């Protein structure tokens, strides 16, 4: 992986420019941030277009930017499963939770738990789950950033981990949600350009050779993901990404920045559009990389070396510039996803653990980044898409049933909600832990330990429904009022 192909001065300069732009935009937004409302939900003043770009900006982490293309190189057409799931997840979010959740008036999942069930203990359980998901998601971002900077600039890995953590924490502490919104919207367009321009240029320069990989058996769907376990693993990935998106804290917290239920719907449709455009370019980049002879086992950073490999001789300069663009996009991906996750973590820590003032939000942001930095520093080699997949699996096994059943079925009790989240989350985390402990000894079941959603999600739903039915006497009478509230437009005179 560390072939040094991408290590070049232009790439290092491009990375520096992205960090500088991030800090400057964040500083500009900071002047607009005063109140707690600014910090937590950007005062609900973000229009759907900005919001959609910001959501896509933070959602398209390095797992999407580098990881999807790397998977296409490795598995061919089968790897389409990941971007399809990542995109379709917003469809589930749109159909089941976007508008009702926004109308609930809550702005974190713990808030929702409290409004819907009126239970402080359930609220705290939700807080713990939020933090675990955020940390599980942050670790691969920081870890990947360390590897990327090591590859590009040659600094030790911890420098990248700590550096990215510092930049992200500084911008979150300074401006909160409001300034992060501008930063992330900018980073979406940056990332799209960083994929689209290289794709267009390489297609133009390589002509027919750009997609020669499509002619090999590798491009036939159904052969990837390691043969025998292919089908169940695909199901598991589909379930985790389709249902996990709606439970991701950093995505959800962004939805509360919408001005109302209708705006939440419009935002979602735009997010899906932006994601489809982005993944289209990413998949093409993966195909071109494969055609250019990129190493299928090269890992997440394989894409960075592609322009230099594909374009040589007279086009070598173009290759260097394109490599720098891709490097810039990758850094933007690490920064935007990490800052979104940190805002989500700081939001729940400051309101659930601290008194919830602006100063608490800042303290919470610092507290929130310490754990993932420590873990990322200790972590060995990881595959970004797969670790991020674990966060999706955990979200799908806990918050998905909580939100879907909580919004659509009046019969969910506090005991049912807690039992469902504990069983689903316990299974998801337990499987991942077992996978790490067992390592290669897991043998043919290793896919299930890595992607437990196919079992943990149905179990979470079943336990939540079963326990709720068994304790049905504890359904609060106020639940009718709450549900009516969720399914009617938030305010009469809003538009």
């Amino acid at each position: 992986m560390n072939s040094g192909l991408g290590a070049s001065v232009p790439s290092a300069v491009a990375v520096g420019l992205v960090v500088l732009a991030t800090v400057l935009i964040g500083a500009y937004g900071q002047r607009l941030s005063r109140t707690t409302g600014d910090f937590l939900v950007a005062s609900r003043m973000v229009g759907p277009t900005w919001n959609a770009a910001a959501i896509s900006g933070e959602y398209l982490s390095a797992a999407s930017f580098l990881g999807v293309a790397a998977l296409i190189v490795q598995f061919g057409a089968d790897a389409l499963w990941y971007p399809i799931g990542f995109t379709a997840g917003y469809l589930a979010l749109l159909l089941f939770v976007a508008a009702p959740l926004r109308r609930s008036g809550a702005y974190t999942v713990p808030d929702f738990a409290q409004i819907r069930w009126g239970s402080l203990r359930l609220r705290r359980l939700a807080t713990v789950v939020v933090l675990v998901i955020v940390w599980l998601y942050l670790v691969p971002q920081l870890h990947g950033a360390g590897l990327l900077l090591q590859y590009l600039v040659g600094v030790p890995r911890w420098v990248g981990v700590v550096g990215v953590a510092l930049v992200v924490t500084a911008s979150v502490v300074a401006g909160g949600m409001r300034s992060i919104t501008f930063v992330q919207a900018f980073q979406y367009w940056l990332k799209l350009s960083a994929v689209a321009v290289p794709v267009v240029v390489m297609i133009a320069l390589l002509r027919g050779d750009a997609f020669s990989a499509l002619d090999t058996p590798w491009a036939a769907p159904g052969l990837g993901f390691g043969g025998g376990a292919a089908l169940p693993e695909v199901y598991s990935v589909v379930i985790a990404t389709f249902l996990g998106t709606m439970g991701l804290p950093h995505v959800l917290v962004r939805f509360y920045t919408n001005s109302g239920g209708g705006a939440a719907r419009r935002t979602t449709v735009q997010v899906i559009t932006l994601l489809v455009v982005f993944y289209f370019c990413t998949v093409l980049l993966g195909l071109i990389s494969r055609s250019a002879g990129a190493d299928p086992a090269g890992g997440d950073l394989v894409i960075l070396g592609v322009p230099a490999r594909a374009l040589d001789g007279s086009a070598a300069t173009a290759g260097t510039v394109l490599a720098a663009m891709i490097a810039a996009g990758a850094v933007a991906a690490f920064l935007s996803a990490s800052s979104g996750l940190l805002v989500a973590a700081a939001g729940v820590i400051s309101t659930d653990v601290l008194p919830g003032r602006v100063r608490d939000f800042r303290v919470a942001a610092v507290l929130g980044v310490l754990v993932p930095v420590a873990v990322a520093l200790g972590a060995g080699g990881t595959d970004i898409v797969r670790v991020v997949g674990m966060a999706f699996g955990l979200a799908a096994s806990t918050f998905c049933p909580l939100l879907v059943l909580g919004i659509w079925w009046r019969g969910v009790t506090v005991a049912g909600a807690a039992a469902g989240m504990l069983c689903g989350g316990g299974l998801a985390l337990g499987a991942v832990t077992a996978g790490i402990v067992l390592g290669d000894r897991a043998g043919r079941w290793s896919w299930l330990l890595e992607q437990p959603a196919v079992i943990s999600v149905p179990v979470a739903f079943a336990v939540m429904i079963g326990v709720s039915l068994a304790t049905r006497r504890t359904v609060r009478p106020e639940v009718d009022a709450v549900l009516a509230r969720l399914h009617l437009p938030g305010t009469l005179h809003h538009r």
Partner: protein
Amino acid sequence: MLSPRRSVTPTTRRSCVSSETDVSGRSETDFEHLQATPEFARLRRALRRFVFPMTVAFLAWYLLYVLLTAYARDFVSTKVFGSVNVGFLLGWGQFVTTFGIAILYSRYADRKLDPQAEQIREEAGEHR
């Protein structure tokens, strides 16, 4: 770390939640009464009539793709034009349908659901 003294909805947190979005028992509209009205039941039905069939249709189409790529490899490997095969087009079809359903739902909600729901709210307002 959690202080038991802290009230259920601290005022600091309240400050950025407008009173209109308050869903506690003290809200302005009589939601309990609303929930029981036939109009509200009709709204919920209209919502379900779209959401549930669409979800089932999408998942079925998703499943079809998985099954085809797993068990009909010759079919999905058929070249359509140039090097592009059926499997690839089906995969991109998943993206297109995701987008299509999102647009359809958004329009359905704007045209059908929101007017119904606002009418219910308005009538509920007059009842008070």
